[in-house]
């Protein structure tokens, strides 16, 4: 068994979901996503035992594109993030009703397929194809099943699509150029390429454009908030939970090792931009009136920190970034789900329309609180592990980076607690608010359990990704 099983299973799952019909779609999707999770866990087991689960096959001879899927620790960690979040996301949507749900769930699985493929691909063009492929389902998910004013949604989603596509096309140019140099798209060949400073510089920037838009790093983030707001929650979860991580993962996997000298040269600017994103996102989040938008900006702040970690080019920065990616993936999915739970009951996302929910919902409140705390990286949650390591790496680069980046723990607490206060606390809301249903609770509890467990015992994940990160660092520093 190798990693292609995961991809195939997701793809088959997408087709099966589509064929299952509207009534069964969600269940079939859940079964397949759980199956994939199982498979990826067993693959992880194999990987840990030293079995090679990578897959290399030929696809196209001219241009030479290989079906290369490399499953090292880092890739597997990200794939597991995908396969673990997908069932959660699917399951979380059981309380919603979608028109044409077979299409909807098929697209969700297809997107998971594309994202897993992005994480696994070890061939530049293959990677690019998966990268782009992931855009299409989310586009339709946001477009067709989104909420809010249709015209505005169309605009926002189209902007998102064009913007991200535009960015990634420049990456395509870079790949084409690299191909013309290396004669292959294979990761190793690209790593071994000797590029002149000028070449590295523009290739780095071309990659950067693609990733900065995807991650997003300010000032390329303008698509984000609107799309998060307009997309259905499932879409938002997929976007924020996994898709953003594609960008960050790619920074580690592709951008830095291929153009290490440029990365070193631009490091202060990049970290500066990323940290500016942290502060900017936090400050903008303060006054958001829409719950999903607020979470979107919080996400902007968090990924800014992760990006800063990536660009420090140190083991700490990278491993912290990976930890933070995973942690943020879970926590943001949880938070968006919270928003969705509230929406199911109150049909609003405007924070001022909420408040006074806590009295009626002890369980929900506790879980929401824990998620908020995880999001502000309270020690004991996995987010803290990531944030600590990233900030530590930043302090190694420059103490001021750590200080400025560290403002996230203050500002983050500020906007998250303010949000929590306005949403949950205060005089009992006149409108009744039913406490979480068991299915909702399962999702949230799973997320919380994950965050707390790895918050106290992050070693398994660290051990999983560290060897890969060391290899990548070796390439960077060669």
């Amino acid at each position, binding site marked *: 068994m190798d990693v292609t099983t995961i991809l195939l299973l997701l793809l088959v799952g997408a087709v099966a979901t589509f064929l299952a019909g509207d009534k069964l779609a969600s269940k079939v999707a859940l079964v397949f996503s759980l199956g994939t999770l199982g498979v990826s866990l067993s693959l992880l087991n194999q990987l840990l035992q030293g079995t090679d689960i990578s897959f290399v096959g030929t696809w196209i001879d001219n241009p030479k594109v290989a079906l290369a899927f490399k499953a090292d620790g880092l890739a597997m960690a990200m794939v597991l993030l995908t396969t673990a979040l997908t069932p959660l996301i699917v399951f979380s949507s059981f309380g919603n009703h979608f028109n044409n749900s077979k299409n909807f769930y098929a697209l969700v699985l297809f997107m998971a397929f594309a994202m897993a493929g992005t994480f696994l691909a070890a061939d530049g063009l293959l990677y690019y194809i998966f990268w782009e492929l992931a855009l299409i389902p989310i586009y339709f998910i946001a477009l*067709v099943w989104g909420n809010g004013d249709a015209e505005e949604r169309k605009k926002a989603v*189209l902007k998102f699509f064009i913007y991200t596509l535009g960015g990634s096309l420049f990456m395509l140019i870079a790949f084409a150029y690299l191909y013309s140099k290396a004669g292959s798209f294979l990761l190793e060949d690209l790593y071994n390429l000797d590029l002149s400073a000028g070449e590295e510089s523009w290739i780095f920037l071309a990659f950067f454009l693609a990733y900065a838009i995807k991650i997003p790093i300010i000032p390329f983030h303008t698509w984000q908030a609107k799309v998060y707001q307009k997309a259905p929650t499932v879409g938002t979860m997929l976007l924020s939970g996994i898709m953003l991580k594609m960008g960050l993962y790619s920074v580690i996997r592709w951008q830095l090792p291929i153009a290490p000298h440029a990365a070193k040269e631009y490091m202060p600017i990049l970290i500066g931009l990323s940290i500016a994103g942290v502060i900017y996102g936090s400050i903008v989040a303060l006054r958001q009136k829409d719950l999903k938008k607020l979470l979107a900006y919080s996400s902007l702040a968090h990924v800014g920190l992760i990006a800063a970690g990536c660009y420090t080019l140190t083991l700490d920065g990278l491993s912290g970034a990976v930890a933070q990616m995973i942690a943020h993936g879970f926590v943001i999915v949880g938070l968006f789900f919270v928003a969705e739970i509230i929406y199911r009951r109150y049909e609003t996302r405007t924070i001022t329309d909420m408040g006074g929910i806590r009295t009626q919902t002890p369980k929900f409140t506790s879980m929401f609180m824990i998620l908020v705390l995880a999001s502000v990286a309270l020690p004991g949650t996995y987010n803290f592990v990531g944030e600590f390591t990233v900030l530590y790496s930043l302090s190694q680069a420059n103490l001021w980076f750590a200080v400025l980046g560290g403002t996230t723990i203050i500002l983050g607490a500020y906007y998250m607690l303010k949000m929590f206060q306005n949403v949950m606390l205060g005089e009992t809301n006149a409108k009744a608010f039913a406490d979480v249903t068991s299915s909702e609770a399962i999702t949230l509890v799973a997320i919380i359990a994950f965050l707390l467990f790895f918050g106290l015992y992050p070693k398994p994940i660290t051990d999983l990704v560290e060897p890969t990160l060391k290899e990548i660092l070796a390439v960077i520093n060669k």
Partner: protein
Amino acid sequence: MQTLIAITALGVFCLIAEIFNLRKLLVPVTVVGLLAVLGLTLQLWSIDPALDTRYTSMIAVDGFASAFSTLFVLLTLFLVLMSDTFYQEHPTKFSDFVAIKIFLLAGAVAMVSFTNLSMFFLGIEVLSISLYVLAASKRLDIKSNEAGMKYFLMGSFASGIILFGICLIYGAMMSFDVTFIKEMSRSAELPIWFPIGIILVVIGMLFKIAAAPFHFWAPDVYEGSPALTTATMSTLAKVTAMATLFKLLSVMNADIDSKFQMVIVVVSILSMSIGNLMALRQDNVKRMLAFSGISHAGFMLMALLSISNAGSMLLYYAAAYALAGIAAFAVIVSVTGDGGNETTARFNGLGKTHPLLAAILTASLLSMAGIPIFSGFFAKFMLFSQTIQSGYLFLVIVGVINSIISVGYYFKLILAMYTKEAGEGKQAVPLVYTIVAVLSIAFNIIIGLYPALVTDLLG
């Protein structure tokens, strides 16, 4: 040669069928005939094209010609399949329509397999005249008339220029035989007539593929012509002209110096940019696709910059583009029918009323936009890659920016299909359109997944 003869025979059969009132049989027999032609082409090709030695001074079948001929036959097959339903309002003219399409195919095949400029010229004229007729074929529709008129006037103007070019080449070379010309162009010191002649011919071909600034006819003509004709023009005619241009330049060993390449670059940039920018503001779907076609012409022109090894790439691009175009037009035809409202509004709510058609149109538009797994992506990618290797990074960046712009209008249509409410009730869609659409988009995706199927054809 056999292919050409077979096609012509098929065309003549259509005319005879009319005499004996065999209209019902016409499409099935033509389709079978075309399939036979397809088989014949493939068979001849697989044996050894060089075996077809008769009249090699006029027609020579090589890999390039065979591959493109196959593509043309395939496209014609789709077009003929659609004709049955499309022309059901015109039973008396039906056989003429089919026959003209078949002859048009003959012209196209002649254009890619010529070894003598006279064949080239006649081929292009057969193609053009067929298209003039098809464009104007709705005789009571003023738009169709206008389209035919415009196309005819400008087309014959371009023919004049091509003829002038051929004349100058002849003047310089004393022959119309391209192999002879090729040899001569290497050896002797040439009179200036030769390069001028080449340029004039190239300009004429640029007109045919609707590259800027010779593109003005395309939107008007595409819009005015009956939808199926537009489909023919934007797929078959365009890729034929492009392949011919490529072949012309490659077989005549025309010295593409850097100055000439600069012209190609500028024309390419102009075509891409004008095509995409103008398409943004179009409301008529056919017109939008016309501009999109202009931009694709610009993309395809990049192949001329690395003429020695871009043949398979061009074939791939042409196939990807044409198949996507056929799929798109099959849906457009099935939605708009013959004439009527062709604005994007007509596609409102298609995602709900006809999900399959909407999906196919979406897929074909995505392919044209160059989104992966659809062959349009690989087409663009290979072209970009090749162009970068030829050292035209700047051109590729412009191309990429244009790709981004193009998403804007392709998605306008997709948005209309999926977000707007359907205006009218659900209308029945002829099965044959759906079949054609499914087939062509399936081909498109298959060659997207296995580009080698096409790229390996030309080594």
